[in-house]
């Protein structure tokens, strides 16, 4: 049988993949994609807990799904702003490689 723990483990592995992507990759667009993976891992565990907590009327807890709705909305706005920054940066420096952008490096 599939338990709550299975979903939490799968969500944890997905989060780790996204985290490793942010740590290892040097292309800003790939880093943004890895951020999306991490947000989706959080969504998966929220929905799993929503299904796990069945209230007295016998329906899942919809508060968590409202929260997932908010997360998806914020993620969409974040991607739009992030990609606009990438485009502005590319226009200025002709690169999307983080090691080529060191103006703020001490």
């Amino acid at each position, binding site marked *: *049988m*599939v*338990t*709550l*723990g*299975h979903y*939490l*483990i*799968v969500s*944890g*592995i*997905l989060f*780790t*993949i996204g*985290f*490793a*992507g942010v*740590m*290892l990759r040097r*292309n800003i*667009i*790939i880093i*943004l*994609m*890895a951020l*999306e993976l991490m947000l*989706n891992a959080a*969504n*998966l565990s929220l*929905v799993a807990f*929503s299904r*796990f907590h*069945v209230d007295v009327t*016998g*329906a*899942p807890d*919809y508060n968590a*799904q409202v929260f*997932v*709705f*908010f997360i*998806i*909305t914020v*993620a*969409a*706005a*974040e*991607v*739009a*702003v992030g*990609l*606009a*920054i*990438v*485009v*502005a940066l590319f*226009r200025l420096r002709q690169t*999307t*490689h983080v*090691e080529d952008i060191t103006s703020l490096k001490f």
Partner: protein
Amino acid sequence: MSAFLFWIFALLMLVFGAAVIINRNPVASALSLVVSFLGLAALFLSLDAYFVGIIQVLVYAGAIMVLFLFIIMLLDLRGEKLRKINWIASAGGLAVAFALMLQIFSVVEKFPAAKQTFPPITRSTSDDVHRIGLLLFNNYNLPFQVIGVVILVATVGVVVLSRRETR
């Protein structure tokens, strides 16, 4: 939903999620991300969350991925040239990610509810759009309006950022 389908879609999601960060070609990464999100949407459906699953396909696999592909096309990114890899930094990053995964595993292991199966739902969830909408406009009205402002600010910010300086 049977355990077999759960494992199929979980593996699909994880394998293509890993492909996102392994591929050197950004277009291949973006397409792997679409498949990963579709697997995730199937997992949402397996949890009786129909609205969230459909939103996942429409917003992520539809809108956000088109945005990514559009930017990749706009910037005309080829596969990256193989640069000198900083092995110490890569090993450090992998070690931190691995430690994070072990920590998540140990937390889930110690969590008593994690070993329980999902309780049966007696009420159909096919009207969850209705239920979520009611919650959104009653209990979460203020956050809903704040989200609207966030989207407005993001839209204005994107226009300002991508405007070409003419001075």
